[in-house]
């Protein structure tokens, strides 16, 4: 079960081409005056693992539906290797899709399910059998060809769904929250499998999820969507370290956000901020252009302990909650009646543990205070 799929198994006996390059050019979906998707342009490279995350109603499902052909866009083009998909019905798009509930046909065996797209393409019996067999090998379900979906475990069904969506060499693989029905341990195992599967086939994958950890662990790049727009596109690291706005900062990972009441430049390209609670906090750099900004400090950048004389930023509060999980301590520290700070620390590097109700000092560098635009 834990053996990873290797590239050699996947490509054995076939000459695979790389996945398609996908370009969205001003793709829009309007229902009356309501924009489900504002004009959206983005480029996905050949062989890229591209994730789309966002809260429900953010437009990610619309973007997927438009790509698969279930939702006609109001405007724009979707170019797959230069060919515009708009107007082509779903069954002629040659796109593979893995659905949230897998949608394996319950009345067909595993082999019949995987063979279905080949049958629709009127592929010869011998070649179809050969491809089904090869795909079963890729997803390590060799002995399961004659089982029905109901006789398989969730993870096995997932692998059949992957095999079925990829057996006809689609130009693009879409995945709609494919792991959300699995329990946590299996989900992590399947993340590695899907990633290995994608690399083995060299396929371009667009992966929609609401789970930011899943997206971060699998993707080359992530698009974060909000309110029918792409809020930011970047690698998981870029998005976490340089969020473009408040939404991205708070959606990806945990963030301590301070409202800015006043601010003034300080010597050495720094900014001195007075927060809504009256704290005075130093940040490196200058405020972003545009209307308004917030100050963000990530939980793991804060140290907790005794007062430090030389620290750029220091707040005092009482521990209101501490959660210990897999080697990391998560503290919540009340620093003002209306504000709690999240703090995270590797358990091994802690000088000592703090109890609920204890008074502690929080310190962090000025370079760890990020100034982030509201919009």
């Amino acid at each position: 079960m834990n053996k990873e799929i290797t590239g050699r198994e996947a490509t054995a006996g076939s000459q695979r081409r790389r996945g398609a390059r996908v370009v969205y050019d001003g793709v829009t979906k309007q229902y009356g005056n309501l924009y489900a998707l504002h004009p959206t342009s983005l480029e996905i490279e050949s062989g890229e693992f591209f994730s789309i995350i966002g809260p429900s109603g953010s437009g990610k499902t619309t973007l997927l539906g438009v790509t698969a052909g279930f939702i006609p866009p109001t405007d724009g083009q979707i170019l797959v290797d230069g060919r515009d998909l708009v107007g082509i019905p779903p069954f002629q798009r040659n796109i593979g899709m893995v659905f949230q509930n897998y949608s394996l046909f319950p009345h067909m065996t595993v082999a019949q399910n995987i063979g279905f797209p080949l049958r629709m393409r009127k592929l010869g019996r011998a070649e179809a059998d050969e491809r089904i067999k090869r795909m079963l090998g890729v997803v390590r379900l060799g002995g399961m060809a004659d089982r029905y979906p109901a006789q398989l475990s969730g993870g096995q069904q997932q692998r059949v769904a992957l095999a079925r969506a990829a057996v006809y060499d689609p130009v693009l693989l879409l995945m709609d929250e494919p792991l959300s029905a699995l329990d946590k341990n299996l989900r992590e195992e399947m993340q590695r499998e899907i990633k290995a599967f994608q690399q083995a086939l060299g396929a371009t994958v667009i992966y929609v999820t609401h789970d930011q950890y899943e997206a971060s662990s699998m993707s080359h790049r992530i698009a974060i969507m909000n309110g029918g727009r792409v809020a930011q596109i970047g690698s998981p690291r870029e998005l976490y370290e340089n969020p473009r706005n408040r939404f991205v900062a708070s959606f990806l990972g945990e963030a301590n956000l301070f409202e800015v009441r006043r601010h003034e430049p300080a010597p050495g390209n720094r900014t001195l901020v007075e927060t809504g609670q009256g704290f005075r906090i130093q940040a490196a750099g200058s405020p972003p252009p545009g209307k308004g900004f917030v100050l963000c400090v990530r939980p793991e950048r804060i140290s907790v302990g005794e007062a430090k004389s030389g620290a750029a930023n220091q707040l005092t509060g009482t521990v209101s909650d501490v959660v210990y999980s897999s080697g990391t301590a998560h503290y919540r520290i009340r620093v003002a009646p209306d504000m709690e700070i999240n703090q995270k620390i590797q358990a091994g590097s802690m000088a000592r543990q703090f109890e609920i109700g204890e008074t502690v000092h929080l310190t962090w560098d000025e370079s760890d205070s990020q100034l982030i635009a509201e919009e």
Partner: protein
Amino acid sequence: MGWPIAIRLWKIFLLAFTVLACLYLVFPTFVILPLSFSSSLYLSFPPPGWSTQWYVALWNSPTYSVAFLHSIFIGLPAAAIAVVFGTMLALALVRGKVWGTRGLTALAIAPFLLPQIILAIGLYSILAKFGLTATYVGVIAGHAVVATPLVFITVSAALRSYDSTFEMAAMTLGANGWKSFWFVTFPMIRLGVLAGGIFAFSFSFDEIIIALFLTNTQTTTLPKQLYSELRYNMTPTIAAASSVIIAISLLLLTAVALIEKRSRKRIAAAGAGAKA
């Protein structure tokens, strides 16, 4: 053992109530059974003795045999038409994006809920214009109209028990609308279609009002034959014929129950599969 007296009494009361309710529902129907085995020449209860003579009489009666065949020849095509239209309606209203789905759904069920006498009068006046009142065509059309909602309801239920992503999956895999219906949708709803078809046939087989209006002696159905026998010829043959109708209806209902049990199992399997 171990139950408090109050609860035990309550359970006994519930059991007694259930038995009485069941008797109330089916007893009037089954009163006819002993009558059909009567040795008397008249319909009287209780029968003075037992005999199977009336079944023999029924078997040998040309009018009953012909009426029985008429009922089959009217019921089968009526059910077939109802299956086609009911399934198409269900597909359009459950899966399709049709404007005014709620209103159309009410309209689709209406023929079964509206008084059939009114439909019969309406059909009669229209069919009379085309000279079709006493033909198979008229009564088959009438039965098909009323039976279509029965198919619509069972097929809608079958469609609702499956997520529409199965069809979307079929489409992404290269199946056009017709192929995705034939290879994916239909195999998943076929038990619902079959159950609807049996209901439709069963309805037509028992129906009297439309048959009274739209058949004549050349096309008379079994229920209509019973009705006219009751008026002129009160022999226990009627009870024997009724018992045959009951037996056939029960058989059909049992078939539907078995089909539904199977389809529940399949849905459970498909659902559990996706969740596991």
